[in-house]
């Protein structure tokens, strides 16, 4: 059952990601990204990470995607234009990514003596004790400092958005501010 679900949603995730790249209209790409995010959430759920799955849906499929679609609509972005560079990129890019993927997959599979058939085996044995307990233990104990330092990071992103986007309203600031979130 787990294996079937895994292949179903992994396939959906990959299909969404490939569709995202193939679409030329930004809004279609953004909608494909929702498919990717949601399928990823199901994969997390299969791994026994319930909290992460819910957070994935709320934060990415919810908040971030709404932001993306808003930006696409506000900018009124049209169909992307094919240039010589982007055509060449499409030709060379896919084989290059395929090669990279093959190399990494070989490394991962070979080294652990795993074959594709074994992939589903580890999926079911989630730890006892809820995810939330473990997560909060790590977040507010071992990783307290990185967690707190993140506030400086967010502060910088806000400062940057203000400094670049306000004043004379150049386009760069808006794009950068959004991207940093």
């Amino acid at each position, binding site marked *: 059952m787990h294996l079937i679900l895994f292949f179903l949603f992994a396939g959906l995730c990959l299909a969404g990601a490939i569709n995202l790249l193939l679409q030329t209209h930004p809004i279609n790409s953004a909608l494909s990204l929702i498919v990717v995010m949601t399928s990823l959430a199901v994969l997390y759920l299969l791994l026994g990470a319930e909290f992460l799955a819910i957070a994935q849906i709320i934060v990415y499929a919810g908040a971030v995607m709404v932001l993306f679609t808003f930006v696409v609509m506000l900018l009124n972005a049209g169909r992307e234009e094919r240039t010589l560079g982007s055509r060449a990129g499409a030709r060379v890019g896919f084989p290059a990514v395929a090669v990279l993927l093959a190399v990494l997959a070989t*490394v991962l599979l070979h*080294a652990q003596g795993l074959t594709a058939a074994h992939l589903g085996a580890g999926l079911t044995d989630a730890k006892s004790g809820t995810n939330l307990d473990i997560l909060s233990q790590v977040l507010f*104990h071992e990783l307290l400092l*990185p967690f707190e*330092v993140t506030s400086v990071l967010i502060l910088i992103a806000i400062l940057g958005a203000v*400094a*670049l986007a306000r004043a004379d309203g150049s386009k*760069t600031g808006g794009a950068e501010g959004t991207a940093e979130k």
Partner: protein
Amino acid sequence: MNPVPDIYRILPEVILTLTGVAIMLVDASIPPAWPRRYLGFLAAIGTTIAIWASVWQLSLPEGTGFFGTVETSAFTVFFHVLICGIVLAALLLSLDALPTYSHHQGEFYALIVFGAVGMCLLTSAVELLLVFIALEISSISTYILAGYRKETGRGPEAAIKYFLLGSFATGFLLYGIALIFGATGTTQVYQAARLAPVAQNQPLVLAAMALMLVGILFKVSAAPFHVWTPDVYEGAPTPVVALMSTAPKAAAFALLLRVVYEIFPHLRSVWEPLLWIVAVLSMTVGNLAALRQQNVKRMLAYSAIAHAGYLLAAFAGIGSIGIAAAAFYTAAYAAMNVGVFAVIVLVAGYDEQLSLIGDFRGLIYRSPLLGSLLIFFLISLIGIPFTGGFFGKFYSFSAAVGGGAIALAIIGLLNSGLAAAYYLRLALVTAQRPAEDEPARPMPHVGPAAIAAVALAVLVTLVLGIVPGATLHAAQSAAHTLQVPPQPSEAPGIPLQSGQ
């Protein structure tokens, strides 16, 4: 033994953060008509206190704090003082170089100080997640600062280019960290270092190291990953270039030292040839491209790539000799590079009316002080004795020879000769008598804060060139602490492994 309070382990960072917050608060609460320039003094004072705090940390017993996520040792103090010193010089320079009409000055100073928090943490973090967050803080603040001259069009272009390529590189580093976690089950540096050699999955460890090296080498603008450097340096405001060509690089080199010497010492046979190739490529590509440049900032951008190459040569050195040489070179390079960009800021001005090599013709007649300072820093960049640049190269190449990489040292020396050509070209143009029919160029305006910044750079360059002993000694003790990491004060991260 009394345990050291955790807060002492991050005291400089805390002071810098508080300074940044104070700048933002004061900026928001004073009337809009008041000059923002004095916020820069506030930032400079905070940075000075942070330097003092870093030096004070030497009196603490070496060790880690916050559950084994940050470390204080001679290594971290060395780089903290270096980074805060660069930030101080850049702040003083900006005080005089930022024109009064430029907007968001408060944010400018706050961003520099917050960026310094990230760079300092990067050198003292011994938890890879903290490393990642610190790197993001330092990078994002520089992306924003690079785009500060919005009115030119090249500023935003530089910021966007830097942002996209930089994020891509950070992705590599993050992937590497994830693979380390996959191979060893921990992201704590000491634990990962202990577990990496015995991990069952050696190819995974290898892949992790390769990805992390790609990410870090991008940040130091070493050769195959250098394409962003000239465009970004050309578009960014020059005081920012003085900062970003030195401080984030010093932090990234500290991270590189920590990664290769502390986490992957057992893979030396793999990373040494890799860094050898990168060093040779960086020197050669940087110097050959610099020869062809007409714009001074682009020329110095390529020279920065070449200097990253000379510095990487030190990594061929064995153990603490290589680390000490690299740390010393970082300091020498930072001093002379801040100095040369400071002079260029003062000559060219914030809006850079004068940016071509020809514009510097006869500088020494227009302003004898700036002209001779420019020549002095160029001489140091060439690596002529009695300047910091000489001893930097000397230690770096002798570390390489000591490590058996004689060919690398020879290539480095040949490259230094090649580099002298374009440095001397600028120096000669500076000393040339201006032609009769040439249009009069404006006299550079030099304020007291900028004088202080340049004086700091001159002083450090001279001290490193004439009495390098003290700094070398500091670099050696830094190297020693990296070789023998302090014992974690408490057993960290046991539940970390139960999380997987």
